[in-house]
C-alpha cells in the first residue's frame, strides 16, 4: 500500500513548461475512432496509445515537435509543427491497401500488458469458418492458452479457468452467454464489431468480477461521413449491416442484423408416419441485432447508445393419436449501453456510462391427451432462469505527464438473479414452489486506481488496485485486489513482461457437462457460497524480427483458484430434490492451473499467420468429489497446437487454412465391470475424469475472392471446407452393451463415440456498398 501511495505521489507531482496535445484518432473514411493507435513524439522519444475511446493525450515541450501517428492497416501520418499552446485536435488516418499486416498483437507490443491480445476484426473475418460464418470466439481458440472445449460445446476455457470466469463485454455490457446453440456460433456479429481485446493475465485494475479472462469487444460507431452497407448471404442465413451519418461528421448510426434458420436441417429429424398422425418435429433458429447511435455534441463531448439482442429459439413437438407434447425453449442476451464521454481538459478524459444486461433461458411445455379427438391439457409448466444487471460507471483517464497515465473509476452493479422460477399446474406444494422461485438481489461496488508509469525508457510499470464490496443476503464481502504489471525492454526488440493479478468473482455458473444445452444457471455468491478467488502470476518474453516480419513469444503462468463450485457426484440441477441450489452444490472447491504458451507469428508478406502451442495442466479438488483427491478439470488438455495460415494468391484470390490439434479432454469412464448386489452387470468408476477422450484434430480451408466493381462496391465470395479431411472428433463417449454378432448368446461392452460434423463445405457471398 505504501508503494502505491508513493507512486501516486510521483504521478501527481508537477511537470511544468510543457504543453499537452490531445484528441481523437479516427478513420478518415468513416470517422470511426481507432482504439490503440500509436502516437509517438519523436522529439521527446515518448509515446502513448489511444484509449478505449480513441482518445490520446501526450506532452511535448513548447516549440517544434514531430508527432508520428500509426495504426495497423493504416498509412502512418506525421505532424511536424511548432506548438505553442496545449491543443485538442482530431487526427484522421487513411486505410492503407498495401499494408496487409495480419497481426494478433495490434499495437506496440512493448507496452501491452502480459497476456493481452488484440485481434483485428478483419483478421478473424478472413479465417476459415463453420458454414461461412466468421466467428470471434472460434478465432480465439486458435490463440495460445484459449480453447473452446470440444465441438458442440459452449464457453471459453482460458488458462485452466471455466467458462463463467470470463468477463465478456460488448460496449462495456456483460454478456453472460456468448454462444448460440452448442457453441457452433458466437453471438458476436463481426460486421458490427470494431475491435476486440483479450486479457488472460496482467489484468488492469479497471477490470474485475471474473477470474480468468476479459474479452473487451467494441461495436462500430457507425460511419459519420457517408452511408454504407454490407449484405451477406450464406448457408447459415443472412446478415445485413447499414450505417451512415445522421448529421454529417457529428452523428451516426449502425444497425446490423443476423438471422439463421436451421429449418432445412431440422427436416432431417422429422420422423412422421405416412398418415402424419404421429412423429416428432424440431426447429431451431437464432438471431442477433446490434444497433448504435453516436452523437458528437461538441468537440469535447460525445454520447452514444448501443443495444444488442440475441436469442435462440427451439420448438419441439412429439405427437400421436393419443398424445401431443409441445415444447418451446429459448435463451439469449439483451444489453444496452448509454455512454457520455467528455474531454475535461487535455489531460483529463471522463466517461459516464449506464449499462443494462440480461441473460435469460426458458423452457415451456404443454402436454395434451387426445380422447375421441378432444384435446385436454394435463400438464404444463414454464421454467425461467435469468440474471439481470444494472450498472453505472464513472471513469477518469488522467495524463499528468507523458510518462504517466492514470485511470480511476467507480463501478456500481445491481444484480438480480433468478436461478429458477416455475409456473405450473403440477401438484407441487407451495413450499416447494417457493424454493424454486427464489430471487436474489446483490450489489457490487468496484473502486479502482490504475497507473501506467514509464519509470525509464526501458521499464514500464502498471500498478493498480481494485477494491470491491459485494452485498447479498445481509452478508458483505470486501475484496482488495492488487494488480501489478512490469514490461522491461531488453533491447534489440526483446521485451520481458511480468504480471500478477488477484481477482474476485461474485457470480457462479452451474452448467451441464458441456453438452451445449441452454441450461446455464447463473448464481450469486451468497452467505452459503462465497465468492470465487484467484491469484495468477505470469512471466513472458517477446521478440520481434522486423526484417522477417516475425514475432515470437513464450509466456508461463501459474494460477490458483478458491471457492469454486460444482455439482455433487451423481447429481445435477435436474435432480429430484427440493433443496435450494446453494444447499445442493459442492462448495469450497480449489483449482490450480499452470502452463507454457508459445507463439510464433508472421505478420507481413504474401504468407501470414501464426503457430500457437500451449502445454498446460489444470486440476480441481472438492471435499466430496473423487474422495477429496485432485482430479483433472474436464477441459484439462495438456497439448494444444494451432496453425493459422493465410496466403494471397493474387490481387483477388486468397486462401487460408487452420489446423488445430488438442489432447482429448478428461472424462469419467469405467475402469472395470462387475456383477453388483442386484446381480446386474455394473460399471466400476475409480474417480472423476479418470480417463481421456481421443485426441482431436481438424483442418479447415477457405478461399476468398474479393473484387471491386465500377461503383466501388466490394464483393466477396467465400468458399470454405470445414473439417477438410473428415476427421471424426469425439463429442461424447458412451459405454454400451451389444450383442456379439457371431455369437448371439454373448454380449459385449463397447465404447461408442459420437461426433458432430463431417466435412462441411460452405459458401457465402457478401457485398459492401
Amino acid at each position, binding site marked *: 500500500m505504501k508503494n502505491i501511495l508513493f507512486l501516486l505521489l510521483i504521478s501527481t507531482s508537477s511537470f511544468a513548461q510543457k504543453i499537452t496535445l490531445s484528441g481523437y484518432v479516427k478513420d478518415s473514411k468513416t470517422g470511426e475512432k481507432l482504439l490503440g493507435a500509436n502516437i509517438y513524439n519523436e522529439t521527446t522519444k515518448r509515446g502513448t496509445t489511444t484509449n478505449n475511446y480513441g482518445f490520446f493525450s501526450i506532452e511535448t515541450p513548447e516549440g517544434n515537435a514531430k508527432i508520428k501517428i500509426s495504426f495497423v492497416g493504416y498509412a502512418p501520418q506525421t505532424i511536424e509543427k511548432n506548438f505553442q499552446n496545449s491543443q485538442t485536435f482530431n487526427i484522421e488516418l487513411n486505410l492503407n491497401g498495401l499494408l496487409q499486416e495480419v497481426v494478433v498483437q495490434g499495437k506496440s507490443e512493448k507496452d501491452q500488458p502480459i497476456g493481452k491480445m488484440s485481434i483485428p476484426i478483419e483478421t478473424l473475418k478472413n479465417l476459415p469458418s463453420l458454414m461461412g460464418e466468421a466467428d470471434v470466439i472460434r478465432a480465439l481458440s486458435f490463440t495460445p492458452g484459449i480453447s473452446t472445449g470440444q465441438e458442440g460445446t459452449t464457453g471459453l476455457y482460458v488458462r485452466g479457468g471455466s467458462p463463467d470466469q470470463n468477463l465478456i463485454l460488448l460496449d462495456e455490457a456483460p454478456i453472460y452467454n456468448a454462444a448460440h446453440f452448442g457453441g457452433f456460433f458466437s453471438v458476436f456479429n463481426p460486421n458490427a464489431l470494431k475491435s476486440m481485446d483479450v486479457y488472460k493475465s496482467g489484468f488492469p485494475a479497471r477490470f474485475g468480477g471474473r477470474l480468468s479472462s476479459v474479452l473487451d469487444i467494441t461495436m462500430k460507431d457507425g460511419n459519420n461521413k457517408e452511408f454504407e452497407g454490407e449484405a451477406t448471404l450464406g448457408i447459415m442465413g443472412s446478415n445485413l449491416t447499414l450505417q451512415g451519418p445522421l448529421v454529417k461528421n457529428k452523428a451516426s448510426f449502425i444497425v446490423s442484423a443476423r438471422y439463421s434458420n436451421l429449418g432445412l436441417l431440422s427436416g432431417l429429424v422429422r420422423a412422421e408416419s405416412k398418415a402424419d398422425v404421429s412423429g416428432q418435429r424440431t426447429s431451431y433458429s437464432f438471431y442477433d441485432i446490434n444497433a448504435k447511435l453516436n452523437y458528437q455534441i461538441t468537440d469535447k463531448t460525445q454520447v452514444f447508445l448501443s443495444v444488442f439482442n440475441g436469442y435462440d429459439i427451439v420448438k419441439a413437438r412429439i405427437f400421436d393419436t393419443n398424445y401431443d407434447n409441445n*415444447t418451446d425453449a429459448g435463451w439469449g442476451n439483451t444489453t444496452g449501453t448509454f455512454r457520455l464521454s467528455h474531454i475535461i481538459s487535455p489531460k483529463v478524459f471522463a466517461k459516464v456510462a449506464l449499462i443494462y444486461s440480461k441473460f435469460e433461458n426458458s423452457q415451456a411445455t404443454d402436454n395434451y391427451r387426445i380422447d375421441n379427438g378432444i384435446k385436454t391439457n394435463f400438464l404444463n409448466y414454464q421454467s425461467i432462469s435469468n440474471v439481470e444487471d444494472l450498472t453505472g460507471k464513472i471513469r477518469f483517464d488522467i495524463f499528468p505527464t507523458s510518462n504517466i497515465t492514470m485511470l480511476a473509476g467507480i463501478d456500481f452493479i445491481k444484480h438480480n438473479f433468478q436461478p429458477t422460477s416455475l409456473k405450473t399446474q403440477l401438484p*407441487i406444494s407451495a413450499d416447494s414452489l417457493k424454493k424454486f422461485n427464489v430471487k436474489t438481489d446483490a450489489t457490487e461496488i468496484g473502486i479502482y486506481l490504475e497507473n501506467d508509469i514509464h519509470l525509464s525508457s526501458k521499464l514500464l510499470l502498471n500498478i493498480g488496485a481494485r477494491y470491491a464490496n459485494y452485498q447479498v443476503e445481509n452478508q458483505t464481502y470486501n475484496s482488495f485486489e492488487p494488480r501489478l504489471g512490469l514490461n522491461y525492454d531488453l533491447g534489440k526488440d526483446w521485451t520481458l513482461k511480468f504480471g500478477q493479478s488477484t481477482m474476485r468473482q461474485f457470480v457462479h455458473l452451474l452448467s451441464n457437462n458441456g453438452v451445449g444445452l441452454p441450461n446455464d444457471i447463473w448464481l450469486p455468491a451468497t452467505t452459503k457460497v462465497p465468492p470465487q478467488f484467484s491469484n495468477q502470476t505470469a512471466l513472458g518474453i517477446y521478440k520481434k524480427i522486423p526484417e522477417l516480419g516475425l514475432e515470437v513469444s513464450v509466456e508461463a503462468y501459474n494460477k490458483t483458484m478458491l471457492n469454486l463450485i460444482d455439482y455433487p457426484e451423481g447429481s445435477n440441477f435436474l435432480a429430484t430434490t427440493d433443496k435450494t441450489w446453494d444447499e445442493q452444490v459442492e462448495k469450497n472447491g480449489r483449482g490450480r492451473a499452470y502452463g507454457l504458451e508459445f507463439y510464433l507469428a508472421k505478420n507481413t508478406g504474401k504468407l501470414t499467420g501464426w503457430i500457437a502451442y500451449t502445454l498446460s495442466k489444470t486440476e480441481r479438488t472438492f471435499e466430496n468429489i473423487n474422495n477429496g483427491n485432485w482430479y483433472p478439470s474436464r477441459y484439462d488438455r495438456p497439448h494444444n497446437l494451432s496453425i493459422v495460415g493465410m496466403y494471397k494468391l493474387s490481387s483477388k484470390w486468397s486462401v487460408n487454412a487452420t489446423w488445430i490439434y488438442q489432447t482429448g479432454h478428461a472424462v469419467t469412464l469405467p475402469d472395470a465391470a462387475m456383477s453388483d448386489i442386484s446381480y446386474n452387470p455394473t460399471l466400476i468408476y475409480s474417480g472423476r475424469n479418470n480417463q481421456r477422450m481421443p485426441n482431436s484434430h481438424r483442418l479447415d480451408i477457405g478461399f476468398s475472392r474479393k473484387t471491386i466493381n465500377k461503383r466501388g462496391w466490394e464483393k466477396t465470395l467465400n468458399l470454405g471446407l470445414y473439417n477438410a479431411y473428415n476427421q471424426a472428433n469425439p463429442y461424447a463417449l458412451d459405454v454400451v452393451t451389444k450383442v456379439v454378432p457371431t455369437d448371439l448368446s454373448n454380449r459385449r461392452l463397447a465404447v461408442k463415440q459420437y461426433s458432430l460434423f463431417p466435412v462441411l463445405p460452405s459458401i457465402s457471398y457478401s457485398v459492401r456498398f
Partner: protein
Amino acid sequence: MVGYFLPHHHNFMKKTILFIAFSIFFLACREKEIEYELPFEGEKLVVIGILNPDEPINVKVTHTWTPTGIIPKNTFVDNATVNVLEDGKLKEQLVLEKEGNYISIKGLKPLLGHKYLVEVFSSKYSKVISEQVQIPENKAKFTFQQIADIDYKYNRDTPKDQINVTLEDDLSKRSYYAISFNLYGDKSSNGNLYNRGSVFYLNDDGKVASNKECSFNQTIYKDKNTISENVRVLANQCFTNSKNTFSFIVEKAYYNGFQNNKTIYKKVENPTLNIYQFDKGYFEYLKLKDQPDGLFERAFTEPHTTYTNIKGGYGIIGAVTKKSELLNMTCKICQ
C-alpha cells in the same frame, strides 16, 4: 408396479430438455463405434455379503472384468478361501455352496453389536479384506398409524391405506434406517417375487425428505430369484427431532385383470411393514449404487466413484437388522 413415486416437476423438465437435446443433437451428429480398449488393471475379486442376525452368513465371490469386451457369462470364483472374523478373531471359514456363493455350514449368524470382517484368498487373485462392520443394535423404536381407504391422486381406483411411521432416535450417534412394505401377490410366472402394490412416499418438504444424502429410494434383493424390496432409506443426520414421522400411501391390492367392464383387484398377501437398520457402509453403497445410464444421462450427471468397503477389490460387506409388523388391511372391492 414397483416403487415409490416422488411427485416433482423436475422429471418433466428433464424429459423436455432431453428431448430437445436429442432432437438437435441428431441434426448434425454422427456416431462411430470405436473399439477402444479402455485400460483394465486386471481382474479383481468382488465380495458381496449382507450380514443379518436372522440369517446364516453367506458371501458371494465373483471377479471383475474388462470394461470393454465380451461380458463373461460366469464370473464366479469357486476356489476361494473365505474367512469370517468376529471381533478380530477367525470365527469360521465358509464353504462353497454353488456359483461363487459361500455359506456357513454351522449356520453361523452374526450377533447384534459384534464386529465382523471378511477376508478372501484365491490363487488367481490378490487377497482382499473387508472393512470391519458392526451389526447395528436392533433398537429401532417405531410406531405406526394406519388410515384406511385413503383417496390419493394417483391410481385413484386402486384401494389404498395411509401408513404414518414414526421413528424414535436419540440422535446421539449416526444411525441409518430403511422403511419398506411387503405387498406381494403370488409369485409371477418367472418365479420372481416382487411388490404388486405401489407405495407413494409423501414428500413432507422436511429436511430429511429433501436431502438426498439422507433420504432416497433403493431396491434391495434377498436373492436373485426370490424377493426384491423397494426401501426408503433414511439417515438420522437429517432428523431434526427425536421423533420423525414418515408417511406413505400404500396400495393394498393390485390389478388382476378386466372382466365385464370392471377392473378386478386382488388383495396383497400378508402386507408387512419392515423397519431396517443399516450400518454406514451399506447405506453408502445403496446411496451410490445407481450410475447414470446412457449417453444423455451421462451428459447431465457425472458418475459416482464406485463405493466399496473391500480393500484390494470391490463389493460390500454390509450389516442390517430388521423388525417387521404385519399390517391389517381390508379390501372391500378385492376378489
